[in-house]
């Protein structure tokens, strides 16, 4: 029996690994997800039916919770809009953290009830509690910020100091608890402090830095799952957790690199306030373009690049972009999409939205390929992107985003920026692109502007 259980465990872990491996290509990704889900299903089955040394099984409660949770999960997953994906992922992530938090508390209570325990499992459980709690409240705050329920302007004064003090107190309290181990009192305090730390550490991070924060929180939940795996000596939990932890860590690094900033700088809520070094653009004039001229420019181009940003998601303009692409491709204009790694609110956000609108993924260019393609581009349309196309990053050492790799759209011949008004981007940094001689502005709601462009184009193709 034990041999059989161990075999199924091995299969289950292998399925996770194969699943993640298959996620590395768009063609096999879908089956990769299902493979991982199958591994998960097997793991749950063993957990349900492997013989236990003690306990009353309590199957009724377990089944109830599984069915209810599964039902809620399916309904929510079926309903959510693709533009709301960052919120959804944050929320789910928080639930995973909460799960780790709950079982750690229960296990610590059991340790204290039984009175005999080793230090190593106790430490592991305490860490799982700490990290699970941070991931839980952190994800909820991220969810709140992304859904707009928590305003970006709600910031803590002296947040860095508060965070540092909280973190040090947490470490000190944990070390002390390991020395004395007498009651649960300090454990509850550690839990509450971790929950507070989760809030304070996400609250001050700017909206444009959300891709980094979501990745970190993802990694934290993975680590807490892996720690819980050590508690139960369970390889599936350990492997699953570590794989998730690695994926979160890698994405965090990639996102930081894409912004040319250190993790510390992102967490400290850098950006914003420091705009004093930015170019003075106060009384420069912008050039506007009308729909007719814009559509003629597009019609007689060879290569057109669309640069989507969070504004495209807000305006729900991805389907119109695809219609524009189709119309232009009919008259043999090449259309590509240039996607910056941090465009949107989570890694790969724009790719998913465009895939939803049926855009072929071979037309989605990453930073490097896009910058090569931009040299031969006649017209670039910026749809709701700002900081990722800000030329200050290249040539203004005083700018807060100096050194960040950007989409160098000024390499092309013309730029059309779709924009609601002249407000600066999420980071509050002025963008000299708007005043450049190659740039024309098309003011208004992105979706409406694209619709008018589409109608106008239909009359001339």
């Amino acid at each position: 029996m034990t041999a059989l259980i161990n075999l199924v465990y091995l299969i289950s872990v292998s399925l996770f690994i194969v699943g993640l491996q298959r996620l590395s290509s768009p063609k096999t990704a879908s089956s990769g997800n299902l493979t991982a889900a199958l591994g998960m299903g097997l793991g749950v089955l063993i957990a349900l039916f492997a013989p236990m040394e003690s306990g009353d099984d309590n199957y009724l409660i377990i089944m109830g919770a599984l069915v209810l949770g599964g039902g809620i999960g399916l309904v929510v997953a079926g309903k959510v809009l693709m533009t709301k994906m960052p919120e959804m992922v944050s929320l789910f992530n928080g639930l995973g953290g909460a799960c780790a938090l709950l079982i750690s508390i229960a296990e610590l209570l059991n340790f204290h009830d039984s009175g005999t325990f080793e230090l190593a499992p106790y430490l592991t459980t305490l860490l799982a509690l700490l990290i699970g709690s941070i991931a839980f409240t952190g994800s909820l705050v991220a969810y709140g910020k992304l859904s707009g329920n928590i305003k970006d302007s709600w910031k803590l004064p002296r947040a860095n100091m508060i965070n540092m003090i909280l973190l040090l107190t947490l470490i000190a309290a944990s070390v002390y608890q390991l020395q004395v181990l007498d009651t649960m009192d300090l454990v509850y305090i550690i839990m509450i402090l971790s929950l507070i730390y989760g809030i304070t550490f996400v609250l001050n991070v700017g909206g444009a830095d959300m891709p980094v924060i979501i990745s970190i929180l993802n990694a934290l939940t993975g680590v807490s799952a892996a720690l819980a795996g050590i508690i139960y000596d369970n390889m599936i939990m350990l492997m699953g957790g570590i794989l998730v932890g690695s994926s979160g860590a890698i994405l965090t690094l990639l996102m930081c690199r894409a912004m040319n900033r250190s993790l510390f700088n992102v967490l400290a809520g850098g950006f914003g306030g420091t705009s004093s070094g930015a170019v003075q653009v106060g009384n420069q004039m912008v050039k506007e373009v009308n729909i007719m001229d814009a559509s003629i420019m597009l019609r007689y181009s060879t290569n057109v690049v669309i640069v989507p940003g969070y504004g495209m998601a807000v305006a729900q303009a991805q389907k119109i972009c695809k219609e524009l692409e189709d119309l232009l491709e009919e008259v043999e204009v090449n259309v590509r999409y240039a996607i910056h790694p941090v465009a949107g609110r989570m890694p790969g956000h724009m790719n998913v939205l465009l895939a939803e609108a049926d855009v072929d993924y071979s037309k989605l260019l990453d930073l490097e390929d896009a910058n090569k393609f931009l040299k031969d581009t006649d017209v670039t349309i910026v749809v709701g992107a700002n900081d990722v196309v800000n030329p200050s990053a290249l040539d203004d050492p005083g700018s807060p985003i100096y050194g960040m790799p950007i989409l160098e759209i000024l390499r092309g011949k013309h730029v059309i920026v779709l924009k609601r008004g002249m407000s600066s981007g999420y980071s509050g940094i002025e963008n000299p692109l708007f005043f450049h001689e190659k740039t024309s502005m098309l003011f208004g709601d992105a979706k409406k502007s694209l619709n008018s462009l589409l109608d106008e184009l239909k009359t001339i193709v």
Partner: protein
Amino acid sequence: MNLIIEILTHHLTILFALIMAIFLGFELISKVPTVLHTPLMSGANAISGVVIIGAIILVRSSGSEDYISLGLGSLAILLGTINVVGGHAVTNRMLQMFRKK
């Protein structure tokens, strides 16, 4: 110090597994292209729901009178299952869109 000695003597296998898993994870994930970062993240998110296995073991090993463990455990199963099922389902929805081509 005692802690370190204890971990090294009693939990060596799991430490090996831990280190291998970290390298494997980095190796696997760094191959995922930018296009798939959102599904990767939501798929990984679903996988982090493996903690429900711990929650299930917790509830099964508790006595039927141990209301605290049962309460905490069943809530953990509920939340974890939403994460696992919802996560895989939403990832599947996204990846269907990539597969059409």
